[in-house]
């Protein structure tokens, strides 16, 4: 988790930023500090305000309240009436649809930023060629965007962003327009670009795999606010709210209704026939929601009785739909497990693997093995 705990001053800082579109509050009292060199992802469903946050940092949207600082300078301040136009913020940005100019060649697209910044004309071809080479685009400079494949277009967009050497890179769902296979390859490319440039990167996506695989820290957003901010592993293992638990992780987490109680001599949570032993600061009989990742189930001799309803081999493992009392649960099992639909199995889960939530507040409730 590079830079997350950073002692240095943040490169980007948003303080109490609010943005309204008419009556709709898109971003609400939003504060965030991004450390130099960090790769931070804003993750959330569409309409959660993540793109608006990015565009406010870029200067493409005007916040209605608050302050935004970049590199120790206020680029926007409501109080002081400061607003720096996008071009004066010296940042690079990749757009969702790449936004390559269709009437310019690859070379002209990449050179544009250098020309605008008045680089010496003699120097421009060399810099463009370097940028193209670093993204494996040699020899494509004279093509037009429509003559390139999706992956090549994406790399041109990256080259255009990098060529002026910005300290801050903003990426707005850059991979969402690529097919699944290319997306995996481009994830690696984006990581490599980040590692090579060491530029602070703010990345927006609704794809939690992208967020988990690429980021130093992830901010999960909903309704214009951050629900949880932390390293990917924290988000995955210790979601702070039901929403985060549900949104992060694929295949989806099991959310099961349970009751705090005492049974068979130990305290724990009863989920139908299954008892997860442990203690929480809740009264007996309180209803809770228990979140169990599919891979945390153990199929074996011990545990509660369940019936296999469906078997979905994914190749690397088996996904089982099993009936556990009144619940249908998703179980990720080893691929060599021999089960058929209708077969009776036993399921259990380790207490430290589950997350417990209060169904009213949807907040996590501390739960530990007795």
């Amino acid at each position, binding site marked *: 988790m590079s830079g997350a705990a950073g002692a240095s001053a943040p490169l980007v800082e948003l303080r109490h930023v609010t943005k309204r579109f008419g009556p709709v509050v898109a971003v609400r009292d939003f504060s965030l500090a991004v450390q130099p060199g960090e790769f931070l992802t804003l993750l959330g469903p569409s309409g959660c305000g993540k793109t608006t946050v990015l565009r406010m940092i870029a200067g493409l949207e005007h916040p209605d309240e608050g302050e935004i600082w970049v590199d120790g300078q206020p680029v926007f301040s409501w109080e002081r009436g400061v*607003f720096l136009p996008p071009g004066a913020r010296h940042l690079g940005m990749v757009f969702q649809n790449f936004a390559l100019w269709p009437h310019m060649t690859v070379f002209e697209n990449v050179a544009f930023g250098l020309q*605008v910044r008045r680089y010496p004309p003699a120097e421009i071809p060399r810099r463009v060629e370097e940028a193209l080479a670093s993204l494996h685009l040699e020899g494509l400079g004279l093509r037009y965007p429509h003559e390139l494949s999706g992956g090549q277009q994406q790399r041109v967009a990256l080259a255009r962003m990098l060529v002026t050497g910005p300290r801050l890179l903003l990426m707005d769902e850059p991979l969402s327009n690529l097919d699944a296979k290319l997306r995996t390859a481009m994830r690696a490319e984006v990581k490599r670009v980040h590692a090579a440039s060491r530029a602070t990167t703010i990345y927006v996506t609704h794809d939690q795999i992208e967020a988990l695989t690429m980021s130093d820290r992830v901010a999960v957003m909903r309704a214009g606010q951050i629900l949880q901010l932390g390293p990917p592993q924290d988000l995955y293992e210790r979601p702070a709210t039901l929403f985060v638990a549900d949104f992060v992780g694929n295949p989806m987490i099991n959310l099961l209704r349970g009751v705090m109680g005492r049974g068979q001599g130990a305290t724990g949570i009863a989920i139908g026939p299954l008892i997860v032993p442990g203690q929480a600061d809740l009264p007996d009989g309180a209803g809770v929601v228990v979140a169990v990742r599919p891979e945390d189930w153990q199929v074996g001799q011990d545990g509660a009785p369940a019936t296999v309803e469906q078997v979905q081999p994914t190749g690397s493992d088996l996904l089982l739909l099993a009936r556990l009392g009144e619940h249908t649960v998703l179980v990720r099992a080893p691929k060599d497990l021999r089960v058929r639909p209708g077969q009776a199995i036993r399921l259990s889960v380790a207490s430290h693997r589950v997350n417990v939530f209060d169904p009213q507040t949807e907040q996590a409730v501390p739960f530990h093995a007795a």
Partner: protein
Amino acid sequence: MAVFSPALVVCLHRLRFGLARPHVIIGLALGVLLALLVVAPMLQLVVTTLTWSDEDLRAHPDAEPGAPTAFHWRRVFSSEISRNVLYVPLANSLVTALGASAVALAVGGLLAWLVVRTDVLGRTWLQTLGVVPYVLPSWTIALVWLILFRSPRAGAGVGLVESATGAPPPDWLAYGPLPIVVVLGLHYFPFAFLLLAAAMRSLDASLEESGEVLGARGGTILRRITVPLLLPALLSAFILTFSKALGTFGTPYLLGLPVRYFTLSTMIYAHIVSRAAAGGYILALVLIVISALTVHANQRAIGARRSFVTITGRGMRTRIRPLGPWRAPAAAFAWGVIAIAVVVPLGLLLWNSLMRYPDDYSLRNLTAHFWIGRSDPAIADGEAGILRNRPILGAAFNSLRLSVATAVLTGVAGLAVGLAVVRGRGTLLAKMVEQVSFLPYLVPSIAFGAVYLAVFLRSWGPLPALYGTFALLVLTCTVKNLPFASRSGIAALMQVSGELEEASAVLGAGLWLRVRRILVPLVASGLLSGVLLAFISTMRELSLIILLITPATRTLTTMTFRYTEQGLPQFANAIIVLLIALILVGELLARRLEARAATAPRERGDRL
């Protein structure tokens, strides 16, 4: 800051940050300009009709110029002359406009269906030729009608029919509502053709096929599925034709006046040339109100339906229906329409322009005098042929520079409106600019001319008295063409994703650089169609400028008019042929330009 109330501070911030955005500045500038050139003139017109003027002193020596009066309104609406001045012409206007729309919709709709949905002979050619009548000046076919059915009462001898049969054609065939309806219908059907063909093309055959699968018969499918889906296009075509026909001047003047059949447009003209302008202005207001009501009714009727015809981008099929035994009659109909609306008129006009005496249809009467002849006192009051005739060549030059100036200005204005509306989408300012730039569409051409005449006879606001100047013509044509230019500007900019511009803004490109290097190259070809339309419609414009023309600013269209009035149809017809030739050359040049703009990047890419 602390002394200001928070609300005021918010306002100041809004203003300050708003002004930093170029589309806001452009929107504000447009708002001011449009208020000055569209909204205020209309108000000025109303004020003029409620005021005594110097003109009134002749009939009313006790009138006090400048003082308010309801006299003009009373005179038009409730006096012994109201019937002749207002009610009869109004009824005539409605009858001819409705009739012309019915003819145009029937002809254009059938032609569109044949071209899009059937295997009629020569589909691709029909598609191109079906638009040509619109390129011709609106009264071209009226002149041809006169060549055919003219009777001596129009001056200039008898028409082709009388000369061939010896019997004069009946008046109802030669003049009045019937010929006006037919002539206007034949001129305006391309609107219906274009709009309906586009709608039919975007109609997925599977929509009708699903009805068929469910067991619906052909008639039911047509009634329950096809027509409702085409209804928005049908209504738009109707409104467009109706409001154009309402405001047209040339045809009702040529074919109505000889039998004293007045429409509102010719009545407006009559008022203004007989120095009773206020009455003409009131009639213009009546015309504006009718036109606005129709457009409003159309929008209410269509409402949410407009969104039916959507382009999904998914694979869409249109089904071609084999006509079977109907193939020959269908082809005869389609090609007959083209022949009657395009080929025969052009042929007759050319022939007539080559005739020494306008009513002698024999071959030995042919002469090139009206084209290239030197001045000869024996012919046509000594006027030289049009290619040697200085005033006519001057008018040709005027027509060209007026059209080019209008086209360029509307192009710029269209781009500006597009920017303000598309980039400011959702803001009040953007909505206002969009609405106001649409307003000139509601004002029929002749009424628009009347509005500008009323306003610019004297100096007005910051503008000097522009009457009689070339600038006024340019201004009038530009503002009147604004709705179409704005629509093409908005459409062109809609296709340019905001990201393309933002990407350059992030790199530090200022407004001018963004417009020059990103926007203009990207929207040029989309904007060009609007510019071309402005060029063509200005070249053949008569109704709009007839009231504003002075001898110094004559155009080809007004010259044809003068010669028709003087009983020299050969000159009029030769000028029309010249005008059409110039329009076609202009269109060809524009298409060449467009093609080059479209292929240039590819060529460059291949070569390097």
